């Protein structure tokens, strides 16, 4: 690791100000992505600004039709939250299969979506549920927020403050774990909104990161059941292919995980 200056601000405004002062600042949340790349000398921020202790960035609120999770809330706290379990249990389940206990105790929803790893779990939930990402500057819909591999709509120095999820009628997540990393080899989040719309998002599958799956959405809109997908064929074009899964295998997983997610959603 290269030398860096560590800061621990106590408010978002202070964090933003500190960010502007450093020549090459980076925000730090759970550190489970940032610290490993710093240790490998692949990142060399001049200043590391820890968001993890900012009170206004931690917490979960459920109010009527919206579940709001603040950016620096850990996966563990999300997994344990009674509000989450009650309003969108699929999110509690998603966090329970995310990484391992060490990752869940440190990693945060804000860090996960800011990083936008193509195999991360949370992007699928945000896109499928039609969530809104709130930053210190603006609100961004999930569809507009994720911009391909490791890329988001965030501007330099912009801080995610919270994510708001509309509470759906039904939602489910299923994931085939990557045998080594335990990220999603492919994970699919299915949502039936209270308005009757169906949104399905897959992670770990596409070369462009999290994606909607229209063929599955159409089939489920007509018939919300696992069986409705039996005859659906997901194209393998544009799918990731590596030693852990061919494009055809991942295309298959999109369908199979979607079926299981629908079953889980009930």
């Amino acid at each position, binding site marked *: *690791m290269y030398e860096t200056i560590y800061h621990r601000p106590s408010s978002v405004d202070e964090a933003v100000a500190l960010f502007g002062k450093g020549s090459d600042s980076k925000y730090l949340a759970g550190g489970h992505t940032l610290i490993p790349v710093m240790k*490998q*000398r692949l990142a060399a921020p001049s200043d590391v600004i820890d968001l993890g202790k900012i009170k206004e960035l931690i917490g979960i609120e459920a109010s009527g039709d919206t579940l709001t999770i603040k950016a620096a809330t850990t996966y563990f706290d999300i997994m344990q939250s009674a509000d989450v379990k009650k309003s969108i249990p699929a999110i509690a389940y998603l966090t329970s299969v995310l990484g391992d206990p060490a990752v869940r105790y440190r990693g945060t929803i804000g860090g996960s979506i800011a990083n936008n790893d193509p195999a991360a779990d949370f992007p699928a939930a945000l896109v499928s549920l039609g969530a809104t990402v709130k930053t210190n500057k603006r609100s961004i819909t999930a569809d507009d927020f994720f911009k391909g591999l490791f890329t988001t709509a965030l501007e330099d120095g912009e801080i995610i403050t919270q994510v708001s999820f509309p509470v759906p009628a039904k939602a489910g997540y299923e994931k*085939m774990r990557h*045998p*080594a*990393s335990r990220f999603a*080899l492919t994970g699919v989040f299915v949502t039936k909104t209270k308005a009757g719309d169906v949104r399905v998002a897959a992670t770990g599958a596409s070369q462009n990161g999290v994606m909607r799956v229209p063929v599955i959405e159409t089939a489920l809109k007509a018939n919300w059941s696992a069986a409705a997908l039996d005859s659906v064929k997901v194209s393998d074009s544009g799918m990731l292919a*590596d*030693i*852990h*899964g*061919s494009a*055809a*295998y991942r295309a*298959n*997983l999109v369908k*199979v995980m979607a079926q299981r997610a629908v079953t889980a959603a009930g």
Partner: protein
Amino acid sequence: MGVEGIGASVVRKEDRRFITGKGRYVDDIKIVGLTHAHFIRSPHAHAKVKSIDTSAAKDMPGVVGILTGQQIVDDKVGNLICGWAITSKDGTGMKMGAWPAMAPEIVRFVGQAVAVVIAETKNQAKDAAEAVVVNYEEFPAAADIRAAIKQGAPQLHPEAPGNVIYDWTIGDEAATEAAFKAAANVVSLDITNNRLVPNAMEPRAAIGEYNEAEEHFTLYTTSQNPHVARLVLSAFYNIAPEHKLRVVAPDVGGGFGSKIFIYPEEMVALWASKKVGRPVKWTGDRTEAFLTDAHGRDHLTNAELALDANNKITGLRVKTYANLGAYMSLFSSSVPTYLYATLLSGQYNIPNIFAEVISVYTNTTPVDAYRGAGRPEASFVVERLLETAARQLKVDPAELRRKNFITQFPHQTPVIMAYDIGDFGASLDSAMKAIDYAGFPARKAKAKSEGKLRGIGLSCYIEACGIAPSKAVGSLGAGVGLWESAEVRVNPVGTIEILTGSHSHGQGHETTFCQLVAERLGVPISQVQIVHGDTDKVQFGMGTYGSRSAAVGLTAILKAMEKVEAKAKKIAAHALEASESDIVIENGEFKVTGTDKSIALPIVALAAYTAHNLPDGMEPGLKEGAFYDPTNFTFPAGAYICELEVDAATGKTSFINFVAADDFGRLINPMIVEGQVHGGLAQGIGQALLEGAAYDSSGQLLTASFMDYAMPRADDLPSFKLNHTTTLCPGNPLGVKGCGEAGAIGASAAVINAITDAIGNNKLEMPATPDRVWHAIHG
């Protein structure tokens, strides 16, 4: 004898320091004036080093020295050796290319060191390394066996035309050919034995320390065999003469074979300590471990089995290509030959066997012994063939095995080994009972009705352990003898130190070796200390690998114990005015049988050291040494059965049950044996389902971290059901056979046999990832 003797599941003495973080590993050692080394490694699989420019780096903060491959050559540091000479079928010797500790000119695998930066801190060494400019001219690479042996393949070493190191055979080719001609049925199988990365928990590390006034070197290193390291460093690498070199292997966090070898980094740390006049430490990180620890396995094999009309095996023919990587590591040549092909008879009476092994160079990390070393590969070939034969002949796989089991001992196989004892039927019976083999068809049918694919797979393995009779291995090309030595010191106050040439890096010797003393003398193990891992303390030793430490190392201790006991009895008899033949040892006392006269061990020990009243002519002291050379290998064997289900939609495998029935001879500490089997099974199952080193065609290691290389985790594994059947090894007085590698040897075939049974399709390579299993089912 007693609660801590042989056969007692005594809690491991060493665990207190390990689980409280008080172990002392190489990286924990601090020496005044210590400097830190960071290696500059080739990013290319095959290239010429055109220049190394250190001008910007050498004056950077903290830099103590920058040393290059050319300097190591100029200093006449010897090239790395291979300790086992293999002769090709045409009578020529193996074609070995030079391997300098740092490459002066050509690099042949990604991660090969070309220079080292030594600085006050590790970070300073890394900073300076980034400022060293190495200019490479890239060459085409041969990243796997097929690429290395094809026409026009890139040549690695001028000494080895066509990248072939040797083309070696064993067995009677003509007789085997005749058996195949006469066969009623022939079964043929192509097998890939996947390349594995050992991944010991502790990465390799070394500290070299040179004392100028004494002209004396010390090397602290992560070694399974410090004396062998000293021998090789002094005899071949010209870094230090043997009497001026101390090698210390303190606590070592796992080896699995990968820490047998003396690697370039250890050599450089020692050599550099004299060059820079300061102690030099190198601790590898996980990436370096992936790139530079010797890998394991990596075979391509075609195997054929001939059977007569009664399903008796009449012949076995095997052709294997073995990938030895870019250079020949210390025992690399022996692994796919004498440690592999000599086990191809398995547990079966096979009258004719012929095997050909062609070892090749590729632009990959060197390959050498890894838990099981050759024997897992042999067992996998034989057990996959037997299972395939049973399916082809439509007979029960257990029955086909039973029909062909060796039942008379000793048994001479056509491939050198003389099995001394075993009861293969008993192991198979035990495993079949434990898994309710008879009930499997009903379970499979029920699973099918629920849409699940259920399969069962057997694996009846045998291994040759207790490595090894020196004369025998010498006649086969080994450069060393494989005996072991021990010294038993009874201190004046009666406590006991056992100095052993075995080395414990997870095996629990500090407990099991004490149990032998407890058994014989009836003293508590707390009074016994095991001393190992330091060439200044221990007389000599060949170290720990090949499941040899009980069969060979402990027997050496037993031999020394017998000498100590004989002398102590003389002293006791003298003191008690009794006849020596009437003295028995019980609960730490020397007793005159049939009387109440006795004398405690500490009194005998004190008498030996005060020497006030010893029998006439007796030397003072109570300390004896022994060297023990085994007369044969030992042959642990057993039966593993795996039952699992495959999710056809995802290709994911879930274990239902995994049973093991091992015959290790006498068990010294059943709890430790169980732990060894668990670990071995985890690695065998890891090979079958998860682990596999993958290179791209340019020779880049795609699996160079745990994010890509799947190590088995606890939840990947079933809860094992272990059983033991016992035939005592007649070759050593303790009747022990060795248990360290069995799990890794036997498990993978059981798993693959079970998956292929479940999916009804034999075309499946390891690791059987969900992706591969899904493709095997769906095309």
